[in-house]
């Protein structure tokens, strides 16, 4: 029990205050661990590479990658690649999410639409959009738009499936409430179906965001003349591994940043949960 404390302190508020401080400390420790883990990984890498336990030709130490990053940033070429890739990711993401949400809501609400569209979705989903890249390039050319379409195609599926599931899983009592209080189709859509499906829909959007990043790199490797994926691929082919790592780390950074942003958005709009 708290034997030791009983001799020291008899004030219950102070005792609980001590406990509370301990819990706070523990929380802060956990946050520290979260921050420490990527730093730890980088330090370990630096160490292994400097001591040649890792072959520095294939795994250049992070400090050198950072200085490569600086010189690439100075020349301005890097921001060009980043800007192009971000544009493709964001445009492709939106072009996949918006139809995914609309079609998902319609599929969830109207079962004839669901029965008609879901076999098509099920049949198309297993095909990796990247495998369709040749066809997409034939249709949309080698320019930006073909990358945007490729990303949109990959993002669409998790969003449409989760949105449909989100609508179907809305507790039927809310449908009864809406019907009993005479909601029009439009009000039902806006006040019940959309917000009710939002939690599951947001999970699909998170997944879509991750897929968008996976897709952009591969798409830019296969048919592009700019972008982070292109940078990674051409650096690799020229055996400029430091430049390649700059590209890889950028992708990792943006993936982390986007999921933080989406998580924050999710916490804000789903505060009712």
């Amino acid at each position, binding site marked *: 029990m708290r034997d030791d404390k009983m001799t020291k302190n008899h004030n219950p508020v102070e005792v609980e205050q001590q406990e509370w401080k301990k819990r706070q400390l523990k929380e802060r420790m956990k946050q520290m661990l979260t921050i420490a883990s990527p730093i730890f990984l980088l330090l370990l890498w630096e160490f292994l590479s400097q001591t040649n336990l890792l072959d520095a030709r294939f795994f250049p130490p992070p400090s050198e990658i950072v200085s490569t990053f600086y010189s690439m940033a100075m020349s301005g070429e890097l921001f060009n690649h980043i800007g192009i890739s971000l544009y493709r990711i964001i445009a492709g993401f939106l072009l996949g999410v918006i139809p995914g949400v609309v079609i998902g809501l319609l599929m969830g609400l109207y079962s004839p639409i669901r029965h008609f569209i879901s076999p098509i979705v099920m049949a198309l989903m297993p095909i990796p959009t990247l495998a369709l890249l040749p066809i997409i390039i034939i249709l949309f050319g080698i320019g930006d738009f073909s990358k945007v379409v490729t990303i949109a195609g990959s993002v669409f599926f998790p969003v449409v499936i989760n949105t449909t599931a989100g609508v179907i899983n809305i507790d039927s*009592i809310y449908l*009864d409430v809406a019907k009993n209080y005479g909601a029009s189709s439009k009000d039902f859509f806006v006040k019940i179906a959309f917000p009710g499906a939002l939690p599951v829909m947001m999970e699909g959007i998170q997944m879509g965001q991750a897929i968008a990043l996976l897709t952009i790199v591969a798409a830019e490797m296969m048919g592009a003349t700019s972008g982070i994926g292109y940078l990674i691929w051409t650096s690799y082919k020229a055996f400029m591994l430091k430049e390649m790592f700059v590209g890889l780390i950028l992708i990792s950074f943006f993936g982390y940043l986007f999921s933080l942003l989406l998580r924050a958005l999710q916490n804000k709009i789903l505060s009712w*949960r």
Partner: protein
Amino acid sequence: MENNTKISIQDMTKVFYKKNSSVTALDHISLNISEGEFVCLVGPSGCGKTTLLRILAGLETTSVGEYKITEGKENRPLQSMVFQERGVIPWLTVEENVAFGLKMRHLPSELIKERTSYYLEKVGLENFSTLYPKELSGGMKQRVSIARAFANDPEILLMDEPFAALDEQNKFILQEELLSIWEETKKTVLFITHSIDEALLLSDRILLMSSQPGRIIKEIKNDLPRPRNIEQIRSDHNTAGHFVDIWKHLQEEVQKSRK
């Protein structure tokens, strides 16, 4: 039949049909409820009470037979249901929940505001209006549900065991609040309960239903003067007699349904 009938049901039968099996939930129900009357429907579980209410609420259709709710003032909805507490919509604030019916009817926003705050105050939630339901207790959610129905100002109110999930103390308080709002508005109410005390406390008339298939087999007029309280229910000689009557009836019906 009185001429100020508000709800009239004629020979209503409802069958639920599935492959190879059918359940007769309601069997030739006929009844009339007058304007301003508070009627409680009591019966063993599974006898079709919810089904009857859902038909009147427009959430289910009859198999044969019909019903009519007499229209009153223009622009006033015919009926509103007081749902159980889990019918409070979690992504709307307390205020938005209470305003829900009015918003669905696209009334002018000042009117919505005025009526919403009036009923929020009536149920004592004026300080909670911007909270989401997850922050409310069960009793508070049930108040939201009641306020939502009254704010909609319908011709009749339908309630399906609204207090069944509440603890005794909250139940007493809410029953009293309900009675005080009802006495002010004099709405026609059809209220389902399995609690005999609750029926005796609230109603002008009690309808007893048989076990499945549901029929109305007895009606008891409850003349206990208002305002009432729970002690009267226990001490009033007449009411005590009604209690025993209803209790015996329910026993019999439950026995029957077991055979």
